[in-house]
């Protein structure tokens, strides 16, 4: 084995964008956060907006997002990322501002901030990771946990009578006139990753044109919280999450898609 690897003769098939720092991800094996981080930062790099982008990190597993994303960032209190992003965007209207939030942050404790930011049509991008569980605090029920889902606070499975329904906040937001682009994506296959990246690029373009609020929900996994292997977790997600949270655009260029009307009454 030669001392130096002959890189000259190899084709580069994977590269970490330099908009990601050298810090290793703390995420569990198989977790979707790492892929979402990379794609988001790839988009920032490709658009050449690293120097004009400010991110807002949430509370949850991605609380340390600012360790990895090489852009100016603010860490928000739990649920308040949309308000923090609003504050930044209103005083720096020419900059690109995004928040990165989980299901507890965005759809439970931060519901008011989320909905009002959307309703005002804030020119921000919100990345919403929905894995239907509270990963960081040890696997408790999320507002998006599906019916029957076992978590540490629903050991017998989530039941409607006492815990209510999975909160389809993305459908709710799509209904608001301030929301310009609302889509639901995933990152568990190469095709899904490509589609997610297109969504991110589209959302930043919309922000550049001051079109209004953009929300990208990423239905993601939590192998540790779900107590499944990464492969089984993705399979479980496809079989159980996607029927409740179907992948696709809900609203494009301010217009509700047909999918919206067929899905909003289901489940």
């Amino acid at each position, binding site marked *: 084995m030669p001392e130096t690897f002959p890189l000259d003769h190899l084709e580069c098939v994977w590269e970490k964008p330099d908009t990601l720092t050298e810090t290793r991800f703390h995420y569990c094996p198989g977790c979707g956060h790492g892929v979402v981080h990379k794609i988001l930062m790839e988009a920032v790099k490709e658009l050449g907006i*690293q*120097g*004009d*982008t*400010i991110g*807002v*990190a949430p509370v949850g597993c991605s*609380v*340390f997002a*600012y360790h990895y994303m*090489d*852009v*100016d*960032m*603010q*860490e*928000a*209190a739990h649920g*308040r990322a949309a*308000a*923090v*992003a*609003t*504050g*930044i965007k*209103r*005083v*720096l209207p020419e*900059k690109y501002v995004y928040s990165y939030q989980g299901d507890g942050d965005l759809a439970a404790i931060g519901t*008011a*901030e989320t909905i*009002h930011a959307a309703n005002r049509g804030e020119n921000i991008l919100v990345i919403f990771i929905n894995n239907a569980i509270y990963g960081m605090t040890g696997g408790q029920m999320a507002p998006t946990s599906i019916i029957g889902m076992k978590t540490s606070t629903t050991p017998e499975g989530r039941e409607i009578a006492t815990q209510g329904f999975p909160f389809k906040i993305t459908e709710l937001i799509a209904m608001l006139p301030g929301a310009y682009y609302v889509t639901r994506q995933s990152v568990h296959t190469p095709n899904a990753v490509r589609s997610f990246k297109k969504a991110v690029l589209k959302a930043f373009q919309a922000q550049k044109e001051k079109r209004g609020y953009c929300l990208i929900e990423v239905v993601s996994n939590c192998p540790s919280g779900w107590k499944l292997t990464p492969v089984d977790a993705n399979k479980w997600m496809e079989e159980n999450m996607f029927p409740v949270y179907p992948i696709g655009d809900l609203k494009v260029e301010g217009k509700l898609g047909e999918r919206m009307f067929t899905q909003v009454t289901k489940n």
Partner: protein
Amino acid sequence: MSETRLMKGNEALAEAAIRAGCKGYFGYPITPQSEVVEYLAEEGRQRGMVVMQVESELAAINMVYGAAGAGARVMTSSSSPGISLMQEGLSYIACAELPCLIVNVNRGGPGLGTIQPSQGDYFQATKGGGHGDYHLIVLAPASVQEMADFVYDGFDIADKYRNPVMILADGALGQMMEKVVFKEYTPAEHIPPKPWATVGKPPTRERNIITSLFIQPEKMETINIGLQAKYQRVRENEIRYELVEADDAEVLLVAYGLSSRICKKVVELARQQGLPVGLLRPITLYPYPYEILQELSERISSVLVVEMNSGQMVEDVRLGINGKVPVGFYGRMGGVIPSAEEVLHKVIEMFDRVELKHVEEEYHA
């Protein structure tokens, strides 16, 4: 050029904010301070400010966090119940060391309480309020003029220490009309550069991060030590107070804000009766003027603290006096303003007690 106008306290404060170069205001209407957002919605917007009426005080304080973190001179205002909602954000702002101005036009509580003036939020304002070891710097105006002046000072002090500053007023100061002079003030000469702000990272520097999360306890302790060192500097440099007829006073009144105005009248009335009464009026409630109390305790015979609450600042007065002389308290609660006459009555009682003590001492001698 300076300009004289007749205005409500809330309006004077809002006008001063525009003149102080405040770039953003985020708030939620609540009596008795809604004139602030109303004034800014018209005047502030016309003069280039971002003025937002938002969904809650919770959202407002977090917008202040975001905008202050982005380097803008920003503020919010509210009254007691709304300020309670902001405590979460204030703790984060204090830890992330973001300069900003918070105005509490204090009303009677607890709970939903009343819309009348009160000083019931003294503990909340001066002892932290939210979770963790932190302090706001607290300025207590006692006139419409100071409602305006302390806005400039508040912003400047906030920038100087990268610390949230609170103006603790009350419903009467917010609502009453007085003459106010707006001084000359050029924001550009006062607002320092903010190289730490998140404005977008040029290739020439590392990314800026605004956070209050330091998961390693040793690191978190280091952050705390830094904050405490800052508060020490604040205590050394920013204490403000006013003394009225205190040189020969036997009974010293201690009161801040609206109570101090009433006590000024009490001093006048008492002096007319030949009673040597003086007043110490703390202007900064944090940092608190303990030292002057210590000094005065050498030459006064007793202290009467007057507050529009059940006795909150009196604890700080006792710390300053440190047992040297008796400390009495007179307070009205729930939005009731004490009259000068009822305070004077209390003062006369104290003199009677002092005289009685002299008689007893002579008898024993």
